[in-house]
Structure formats: C-alpha cells, structure tokens
C-alpha cells in the first residue's frame, strides 16, 4: 500500500482541520521569506547590470543595448520557458479567482530573469510585477507541495505577493494592502494575518540583505493650505497622465500586433526605439529611480520644458518597451512619470503664480507619484501607503490622500477598470469574490439538475397523461421515444391546463401533439450564467438538460435560488 508521507499533508492533521490559521501563518512566513529573497535577487541583478553597462552608454551603438536585452528576454520567455507571456499580474488574479491560485512553477523564476534582461539593458519597465508574479508562483508551489486546498493556497499566493512587494520596496504595509486590494479583491479576517506576517518576512529579509533604508528620503516638507488647493489640480493632472499611459500602452500593443514579424524581432524593435529615445532623454531608460531621487531632493536640473518632455518621453518609452514585447511591470514607470508630472505641474504653477508659498517641488513630485499609482491601479490605499513607506514623509498625509483619491475617481470616470483588470474584464474573466458572476461560475450544472421527472411516450393519450398527473410532482414532462430513448420534446403543464376538463379531448389527443418539440435546451458543460441569461430572455423558469440526445433532468430557477444562497453563504463566510 502506498504510504502517505504524513508531514506532506499537514492540512489533514485534525488540529489544523478546523482552524488552520497557525498552519497558514507558519507556511506564510516561509513563502514571504522566499519571495523577499526573489525581490532582493532581482534588485541586486538590476543594480549589477546597470553598473556594468553604464560605461557603454555614451557609445553610438548604445541604443542597441535595450534592443538586445528585450530580444533576449523575449526569446528566453517564449522559446526556453514557453511561458506564453502576458503581463503577469492579470494571470495571478485570474488564477486566484477561478482556480484557487494554481500557478505554474516556471513562473517563479522565469519572469525574474526576463525582466532583468529587459530592464537591466535599459528598457523602460519596472521590476515589481515580475517579482509579484514570482512571489505568487512561489506561494502556489509551496501550497501545492503541502497539498493544501483552494482557500489555503489562495492565502499563500497572497503571502507571496505581499512578501514580494514588501521586499522590493522595503514596504511591508504596502505589500499587505496591495495584496488585499488588488490580488485578492477582498478583505477577509482569515487572510490578513498570514499575509501581514509574510509581508513582514519579506521586508525583513530585504532589510537584512540590503539594509533598512528609505528609498527616496527627503528633508521634510511643510504643507500649507495653498498646497492642499494645488493638489486638487495635481490630482487631475495625475489622472490624465494615468489615462494617457494606459491608452498609450494599448495603442502601442495594437500597433505591434499588426506588424507581422516574430516576437523577438518586435521586442528588439521596441528596445531599439527606446534606446534611441534614451540618447536624447536619458531619464527614460531603465527603472528611472535615479531621477526620482533627484526630483524629491529638489535638485532636478532642467526647466519646465525638460520636465514636460521627460514626462511624455517616459510614457512613450514605457509603451514601447511593454507594448512591443518587453517583460516588466508598470509600477516603477508610474512612479517616474508621476514625479515628472508633479514636477512639471509645480514649475508651471510657480511660473504662472509667482510668489505663492508653494511647498518644495520635491513634494509635488512625491504627490505626483501617488496620483499616478492610484490612477493606474485604481487603488488609492495602495498608492497612499506606497508613497508613505518609500518616502517616509508622513507630514504630506493630507495632500497625499486628496491626490490619491481624486486621481482614482477621475481615472475611473474614463477607464472603468484598473490596468490589471482591463484584460480580464474584456475576456469576461474578471471574477471578484462574493459577486454574482463568481457564485455562478462555481456552481456546475450537475449540481442543480433535478432528475425526478416522469417521462412520457409520444403516443400516449391525453387521458392517460392526466391520470399520470396524479402521481407527478412537477410541471414538466419530457417526451422520449420508447425504443431509442431519444428526447423528442417536452410537455408543460401550463399548456394543457385548459384541457383538463374537456373530456372529449381525452381520447382524441396524443402527447406528441401537445408537446413543444423544439424547446431551449441546456448541455452539461454550459455555463450557468449563460443558462440564466437564456431563461431571462425567454421568460421560462425551467429548462431541460439534454445530453447525447437523451433527456437527463431539469434545471429550474426555484432550486437555483437555494443553491445560489448556499454558495454565496459559503463563499463569503469569514472562516469556517
């Protein structure tokens, strides 16, 4: 007999069966550590590549560097890893919502390498999304190793993403909030603790290996009423920047799809274009964190024009890199674009209204970042906490909240879904927990089928049929061919109600005359949501399920209500 290796099935221990929080917390720590490590690893490699290639930047052929990097990344991802690249985070959200967070093992490291190639060589993208994907895949793999169920695995995937974000930004709170707000889409008490613990683990390992430093330290800002007022304007600017970036990316992607060359050539083209752009506006290359640093310190050289140019250039460059097949995320570019936007806006204000006591332009850069992140992700909390944690400037809380929230709202007006949800929504795959589509997606036809119908042969007389009524409990009678068992039609009681007392018809009418020979039918693998739509459209409350030309059972709205309530109940319950 096959021996069950007990320590690999911890979820089966009775101690953990009812309350698995302790189990999840312990495994969550491990997941957080590993994703934090992945984040640190990527960070280090990027720094290494940056320093390595720096001295080549001034050569005339340097524009080929991003091209080569993007090309290598594309080849690696497609041919070697066969990943079937998408952006990454939508895939995580998709899997969490549908399959309890099942992710492929290869995703744990493939994106790390590919984004290292793209960004390290100068491509305009961020390392955050790949790290999040890796963290999620690590969580998923560990969960699979321990044979955990869907719910537990989802929590561990969340732990992975939290650890990743915490590790790469040294921002544990942001990791937690990002996971809850964007990846999981729900704030459930059961999940918070393991995810928080994982975020802490991720941040801790990052601090141990890289030192506890705030990414963009500043010398403190003093906020006055004027600034609050100005931040309203900045919020709107940031919102428009987000919209511009989103649409730019999509447009670029659409353009690249039309060009019929192999994927890696496309990536190379995109990379080359970025390289050329980088000659003129060197700030667009790579992550761009150096520029943010300068801007926050308030030492950015160049006037309004340069800032505005850099703003548009960075948007363009990011669209080129990501739209043409490079691998990376959108966080870092958003931060850079946001800073440029804030900076430019500040300079415009200072130019237009000289003498107003505006705060240092570094502060506006900071607020711009928050506005962009909140706008693109439509997640104001993530934006607020990210900026707080990477700048350590708690004194800007008020304008920060204003900018984040207003940016989100304004962007939402033009783009109904966040950047990550857009693809999913378009394919109809977006299932947020506790929503109607989620509940319906889980319930299968097999679970709602009722099989207590009495079937009748087509040549039965009406008299016998009415006699049958005495024993039946339903209003629908399927008609089957007595020899082959084939489904021929269905008799609905409502149709014959008026004939019950017409005794003349009893011996003169056959069942096949009163049946509906072409009813709307359901197949076994139909989507319950589609079935309900059909029922609503045709106004019927029950439909037959026919498979292989044989009648199997009925699906009725009445029983569906019970099932729906049960499912909703179970899906939204906090714990067991």
């Amino acid at each position, binding site marked *: 007999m*096959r021996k069950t290796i007990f320590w690999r099935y911890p979820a089966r221990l009775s101690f953990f069966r009812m309350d698995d929080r302790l189990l999840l917390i312990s495994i969550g720590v491990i997941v957080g550590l590993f994703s934090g490590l992945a984040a640190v690893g990527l960070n280090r490699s990027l720094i290494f590549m940056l320093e390595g290639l720096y001295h080549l930047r001034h050569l005339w052929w340097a524009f080929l560097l991003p091209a080569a990097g993007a090309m290598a990344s594309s080849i690696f991802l497609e041919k070697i890893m*066969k990943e079937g690249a*998408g952006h990454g985070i*939508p895939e995580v959200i998709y899997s969490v919502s549908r399959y309890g967070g099942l992710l*492929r093992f290869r995703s744990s490291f493939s994106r790390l390498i590919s984004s290292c190639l793209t960004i390290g060589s100068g491509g305009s993208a961020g390392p955050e999304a790949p790290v999040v994907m890796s963290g999620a895949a690590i969580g998923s793999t560990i969960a*699979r190793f321990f044979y955990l169920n869907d719910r537990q695995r989802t929590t561990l995937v969340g732990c992975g993403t939290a650890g990743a974000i915490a590790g790469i930004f040294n921002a544990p709170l942001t990791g937690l909030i990002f996971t809850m707000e964007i990846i999981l889409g729900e704030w459930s008490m059961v999940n918070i603790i393991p995810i928080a613990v994982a975020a802490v683990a991720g941040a801790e390992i990052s601090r141990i290996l890289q030192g506890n430093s705030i990414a963009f330290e500043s010398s403190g800002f003093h906020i006055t009423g004027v600034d609050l007022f100005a931040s309203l304007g900045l919020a709107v600017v940031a919102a428009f920047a987000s919209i511009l970036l989103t649409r730019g990316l999509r447009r670029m992607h659409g353009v690249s799809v039309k060009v019929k060359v192999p994927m890696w050539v496309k990536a190379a083209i995109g990379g080359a274009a970025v390289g050329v752009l980088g000659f003129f506006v060197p700030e667009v290359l790579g992550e761009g964190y150096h520029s943010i640093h300068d801007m926050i310190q308030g030492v950015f050289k160049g006037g309004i024009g340069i800032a505005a140019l850099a703003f548009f250039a960075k948007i363009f460059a990011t669209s080129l890199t990501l739209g043409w097949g490079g691998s990376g995320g959108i966080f870092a570019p958003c931060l850079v674009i946001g800073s440029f936007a804030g900076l430019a806006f500040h300079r415009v204000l200072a130019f237009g209204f000289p003498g107003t006591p505006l705060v240092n332009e570094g502060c506006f850069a900071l607020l711009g970042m928050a506005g962009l992140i909140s706008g693109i992700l439509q997640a104001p909390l993530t934006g607020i906490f990210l900026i707080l944690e990477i700048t350590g400037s708690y004194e800007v809380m008020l304008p920060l909240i204003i900018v984040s929230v207003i940016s989100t709202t304004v962007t939402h007006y033009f783009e109904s879904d966040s950047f990550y949800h857009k693809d999913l929504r378009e394919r109809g795959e977006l299932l947020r927990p506790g929503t109607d589509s989620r509940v319906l997606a889980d319930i299968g036809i097999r679970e709602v089928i009722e099989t207590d119908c009495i079937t009748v042969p087509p040549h039965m007389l009406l008299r016998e049929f009415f006699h049958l009524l005495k024993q039946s409990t339903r209003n629908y009678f399927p008609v089957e061919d007595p020899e082959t068992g084939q489904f021929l039609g269905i008799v609905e009681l409502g149709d014959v109600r008026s004939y019950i007392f017409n005794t003349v018809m009893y011996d003169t009418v056959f069942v096949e005359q009163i049946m509906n020979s072409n009813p709307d039918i359901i197949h076994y693998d139909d989507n319950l949501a589609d079935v309900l739509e059909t029922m609503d459209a045709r106004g019927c409350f029950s439909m037959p399920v026919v498979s*292989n030309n044989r009648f199997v059972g009925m699906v009725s709205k009445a029983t569906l209500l019970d099932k729906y309530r049960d499912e909703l109940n179970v899906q939204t319950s906090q714990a067991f």
Partner: protein
Amino acid sequence: METTFFHVFRNTPPGREIFMQSLYFCKQTRASIKIYIPEFTKFLMYFDNDVVQVDLDESYLTQPATARSHAMALAVQAGVEPFFIPPMNFTALTLPDISVDFDFMCCPRCISDFSSKFSLGHIGPRVRRIVNAARFPVLIPSSQFKEWKSIMVFFGGSANAVNALNLGLYLSRTTGVPLDLFTQAGELSRSHFIDILKEHDLDEEVEASAREWHFFEKGKFEYNLFEVPHNALAVLGAYGHGLVKEMLFRSTMEMVQSTLTNPLLIAGPNYAVGSR
C-alpha cells in the same frame, strides 16, 4: 450521466491513427468524444492540485481549415458522435484553459516538442504529470490503430494496481470484452495477491469475470510480457511502488510502455471508479 473522452486532434496521418484508437475506445465504452482542435501550441489544464501546461508539437496546428472536417469524417465513419469543444477561458491571450471534467483522456506518448512522431520513446514528463494529477485514466495509444479484443490488467498489489483492476473490471463490464490479469509475483505467493483482492472485496468478481490470470513467479518481466496478446488493451496503475524507487529503477509503467506495442490505459492515484 454520459461518459466523456477528451482528445486533442492532430491533423496528420499519425494523428489519424491515434484518433482512430480514441474513437474505437469510445465506441466500445459507449462514451461520447470531445475533440479539441488546437489553435495555439500551448494550453493549460487546471487540476485539483496541479496546473499542467501542455506544449504541443507544431504539427498539431497543421491545416486548421481541414482539421474539423477530417475529424468529423473519421468520427462518423467509426460511428461515434463528435463534439468539438472550443476553449472557453484563457489564462493569457495565447494560453487557453481546457476543462478537466472528463472521464478519459488520450495522451500520445510524448506531446511535447522534442519527441519524434513515431517513436515509442519514454513517456514524457508532461504526460506523467497529467496522469498523476488527473481524476481520469489516461489512454496512451500505440502508433498504429488496431482493435483490441481483450483487456490485460497489470496487477502488482499496490493501491494503484487495485485502482487499475477496478477500472479493468468496469471496462470489461461495459464493453463485454474478456479480462485477463498479469502479475509478476517475484517472491510473493499467489495467496498474497488473493488476500489483497479479498481486502477490497474483489476476489469474487475477479473469479467470475477474469478469463485468465497470468501469474509469473520467475522470469524477467520484459520477457514475460510476450504473453500479453498483441491485440489487448493494457491497463495499469501509475506509481505502484513509491516515487523514489521508480525514479531509480524503471517503473512498471516505463517497462510496459517501452516493451509492448499495445495501447495503454493508465489509472493515476486520484482515480476512483465512478468519480469524475
């Protein structure tokens, strides 16, 4: 409830041989066949505890215009009604998900890029993962279509072998085809195996339905395999004796697969008769 069989169609002559074997299986077990004509070289199958990415050989995308009509014609000829399943959900634009809600699936020996189209070769790692994760048995066809007239269950006494035996009995019942058993006993006695059958309440059924029990106390396994009729369907369980032992020494599955030319039906650890 209908029995369903999943087949990934390859629009080439070797693919035709494999498809015909699937059709024959369906005809015998009165299952309906669900055919997937791939539009992309990859697809994902999400199981209970694993997600397997299947990378198909480019030949699977041959001539999509004629694929459907070819498949339809072959199915009609075999007398099985075909259903074509288009992928409903996509993990990424080029990565469709395939539902795993089937009773059987056909996996050629190696469906990844590196295999040749004819060889017996070893069972690719992807197929192993599917077998391990799936709740359904996997049919590994031979390279040429031949109607199987008997079923040979490889009974080694492990839990998975009992699974395989249950599967064999179920098939024999539904198809009416005779059932034989094959045991390479080595040092264990016949009564040991009978005890295992008794433990699972199968001894009477085996007595009644099994035609012949090929019981080998000596001789090398590969040589004894000659006793398996050329037109039998081999049924076995995967991972009989522990993963480590199988990785170090070749498993039963491997040996059978590389020696016999018969089609194989493998029941994985998550398979239970009557379950989906």
